[in-house]
């Protein structure tokens, strides 16, 4: 019954080796790259110049602002919708729960490119949305050609894709709240809205935090949607950090600059996750 000491190492080794080659090495390589510049294919150190250049790059600042704006609006709207839907589906009196849950979750199984392209067809100037608006006598909306509307279009699309996903996470957590808590609130004469704000939300706090962090990280990397829905336009109105990193790297082949930008995103993710933990007071 001697315990084989080497065994766990053999088992964890493949994952660790792959992790070292394809995650750890790239993370450090791109950190080094972010301090370098290529001249005729040869990389040399240029100090912080890639980072200082970012401060004066209007497209980068625009991308930062756009990403921030999308984040600030999209994540709370989606989390709120997901909470409302999950509370509704958790209700005792509702029937066909399984059916609704399945239907709401459906968007989460589609690829980001696929749904972005479908939304793209719906939101064209002569697309279905505008044609329906025209039919009922309202004018058409510049969904993809106006700086503000194009951001709203991205927010709508992302919300469509992820609300059901978060709803199912919340639904699972709601099932852990004891029915007694709600019954006690009933006895005290609490209404639906009160129960939602005073029982549901506080009880779900850890899960809401988890979803918010996950959604924040996801939104900061937003790439598939702006590329396939708006191409970052019009006039960089939907340029995101993810898209600009890709363009700098693979259209202008400025690897050093793109890496510096990627590290700014890493920093933002770290700061935001830390703040979200702090603010919500989780351990």
């Amino acid at each position: 019954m001697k315990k084989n000491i080497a065994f766990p190492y053999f088992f964890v080794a493949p994952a660790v080796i792959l992790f070292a080659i394809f995650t750890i090495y790239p993370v450090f390589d791109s950190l080094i790259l972010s301090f370098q510049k290529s001249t005729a294919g040869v990389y040399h150190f240029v100090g912080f110049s890639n980072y200082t250049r970012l401060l004066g790059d209007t497209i980068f600042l625009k991308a930062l602002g756009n990403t921030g704006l999308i984040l600030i609006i999209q994540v709370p709207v989606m989390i709120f919708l997901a909470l409302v839907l999950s509370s509704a589906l958790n209700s005792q009196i509702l029937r066909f729960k399984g059916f609704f849950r399945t239907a709401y979750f459906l968007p989460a199984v589609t690829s980001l490119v696929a749904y972005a392209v479908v939304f793209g067809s719906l939101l064209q100037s002569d697309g279905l949305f505008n044609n329906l608006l025209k039919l009922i006598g309202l004018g058409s909306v510049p969904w993809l050609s106006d700086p503000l509307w194009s951001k709203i279009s991205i927010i709508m699309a992302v919300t469509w894709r992820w609300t059901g996903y978060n709803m199912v996470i919340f639904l699972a957590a709601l099932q852990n709240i004891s029915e007694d808590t709600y019954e006690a609130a009933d006895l005290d004469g609490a209404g639906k809205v009160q129960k939602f704000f005073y029982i549901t939300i506080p009880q779900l706090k850890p899960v809401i935090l988890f979803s918010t962090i996950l959604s924040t990280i996801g939104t900061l990397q937003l790439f598939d949607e702006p590329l396939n829905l708006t191409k970052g336009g019009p006039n960089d109105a939907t340029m995101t950090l993810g898209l600009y990193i890709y363009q700098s790297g693979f259209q202008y082949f400025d690897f050093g600059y793109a890496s510096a930008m990627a590290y700014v995103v890493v920093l933002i993710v770290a700061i935001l996750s830390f703040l979200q933990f702090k603010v919500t007071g989780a351990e």
Partner: protein
Amino acid sequence: MNALENVSVTNQVVTVKKRTLKRNLPSKILMYFLLAIFLVVSVFPFYWMLVGATNTSGKMFTIPPTLLPGKEFMTNLTNLNDTIGITQVLFNSIFVAAVYVVLALAISTAAAYALAKFEFKGKKIIFTAFLLSMMIPGQATLIPLFRMMSDFHFLNSYFALIVPGLCFPFAIFLMRQNLLAFPTELLESARLDGASELRTFLTIVLPSMKPALAATAIFLFMTSWNSFMWPLVATSSNEMHTFPVAISSLIGVTKIDYGQVMMAVSLATVPMIIFFLSLQRQFISGMLGSALK
């Protein structure tokens, strides 16, 4: 006294419940109405995708709108095949996803087992590194991975599409969560009986992990099937494209044929929907994973 109190409380709860049910009829109707609106919003894009795949491109932009499936299914399929070579794209997506799932599942399960059921030096560091890496955005490793693949002449190959993503920490956590619940006494008694560690793992642990393995496999399959940024960067020729990259190339032209686009989207999406509807429970536990624990 206590028992009496309980009875009266229960009665009170029952009356409150009855009262709530009656009072709530209008709010119940309102709730179904709202749920129905969300239902339409969730499902309509899928229906629209099928309408588009069976109509000519122009029909999607008419007033009054075309809201019914048309007869152009075969035309769109043939056109799409002429543009992107649909059998090749289908093969690439399936082949890459299948190989990826098998290898990544084996690697993550093994690592998860070591992390869940053994104490060894370095365990904590490895675990923390995996955990932290989940916060690193994909863009931060994109360029070094591209340079690496380029230096070793692996760009535009199945190797490049499959291997860099094989260690997927999220999948490791998913399996670890489930393996933690496996009773350690069973492992101890197998050791007492003289079974080797590998044998114990293969014959005792793995068979009890089937639901978790299915959930993780689905998660990994979805990851590969829907992956876009890395395949976009790592492949250059049409022959190596997977669905997301092929679809994206279809809308990169000046005159977009939405019949073809929607056909491609349907081919990439409908199998996933069928797959999801038939394995719903495993799907949801795979996709939400450790969020549920």
